[in-house]
């Protein structure tokens, strides 16, 4: 497995890189890959099927200079705070481990290093539902995955000091969803390391996750290939940087 060190970039670039790695992996041009990245500026990504009108407060996002990009994966909207959140992504063949065959167990296997990292910090952490990770009972990480031709792309968040008040302003969460979770606002459901009394810098959060992924998957550090970079560039132009894709629903 290959590990790609921290890339700080705009959301359309990050989403394009994830898809480029997946495509290259399907074509057998690159190995299984794990990477860590952050969004700059702070961004919102929305799930493949979400409605930009119903699920994001576009006016607030515009006012705050927060770009909104649609992911290739399903799931919900995410606020990626530039100095409050690290994103991980794993592109891996389904045959890498028996736990990857089943969707539920694959989330646990691939996001396992995040739970390990939280436990290392002394937090009571574990999985909740299909794809969330909770610390002291509140959501601190969410993941989403897609599968194509025997290859899984899974990416997800790790909130170390996300500004939950900004998150609450830019994401629209339906009342039905909050009621289902037994809360009346997103504030009651989400936490960060900072809120749990642990203050980490971006670099410390990155190093913590990197070590955890290295322990779990023993990858070798590498870089993106020219093929992936060219593919990513094309995907920015044609897809993730294009309103036709981002505002398609």
């Amino acid at each position, binding site marked *: 497995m290959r590990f790609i060190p921290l890339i700080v970039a705009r959301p359309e670039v990050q989403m394009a890189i994830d898809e480029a790695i997946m495509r290259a992996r399907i074509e057998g041009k690159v190995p299984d890959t794990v990477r860590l990245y952050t969004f700059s500026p702070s961004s919102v990504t929305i*799930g*493949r*099927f*979400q*409605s930009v009108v*119903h*699920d994001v407060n576009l006016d607030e996002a515009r006012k705050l200079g927060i770009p909104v990009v649609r992911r*290739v*994966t*399903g*799931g*919900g*909207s995410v606020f990626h705070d530039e100095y409050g959140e690290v994103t991980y992504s794993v592109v891996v063949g389904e045959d890498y481990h028996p736990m990857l065959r089943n*969707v*539920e167990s694959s989330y646990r296997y691939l996001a396992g290093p995040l739970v390990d990292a939280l436990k290392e910090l002394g937090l009571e952490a574990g999985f909740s*539902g*299909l*794809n969330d990770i909770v610390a002291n009972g509140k959501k601190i990480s969410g993941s*989403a*995955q*897609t*599968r*194509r031709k025997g290859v899984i792309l899974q990416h997800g968040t790790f909130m170390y000091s996300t500004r939950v008040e900004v998150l609450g302003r830019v994401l629209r969460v*339906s009342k*039905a*969803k909050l*009621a*289902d979770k037994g809360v009346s606002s997103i504030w009651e459901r989400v936490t960060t390391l900072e809120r749990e009394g642990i203050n980490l810098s971006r670099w410390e959060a990155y190093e913590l996750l990197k070590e955890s992924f290295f322990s779990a998957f023993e990858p070798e550090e590498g870089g993106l290939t020219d093929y992936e970079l060219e593919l990513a560039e094309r995907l920015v132009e044609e897809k993730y940087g294009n309103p036709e894709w981002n505002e398609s*629903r």
Partner: protein
Amino acid sequence: MKHHVGEHKAKKGLIRIEFDERDGRAEHVRITGDFFMHPEEAVHELEQKLEGHGIDELESLMDEFFAMRMDIEMPYVNIEDFKIALKNALKE
């Protein structure tokens, strides 16, 4: 013309179905939400399946669609969840 929107929270994810009703038919059918479905293209294909049909036919068309598509995976979501979202849209 009447705009219908119906939501339903499945075990994992919210499903929202909306469409315009014109002369008893569904137009501009949109299925949105934070659920998961692989392959993802199937959501658009389901919308197309429903597009332009009488609103009283939509539920059976949904059944037909999922019965034919054995390749679709929807973790923690089932066909009933889509049908409840549709019923909620029709109640509006």
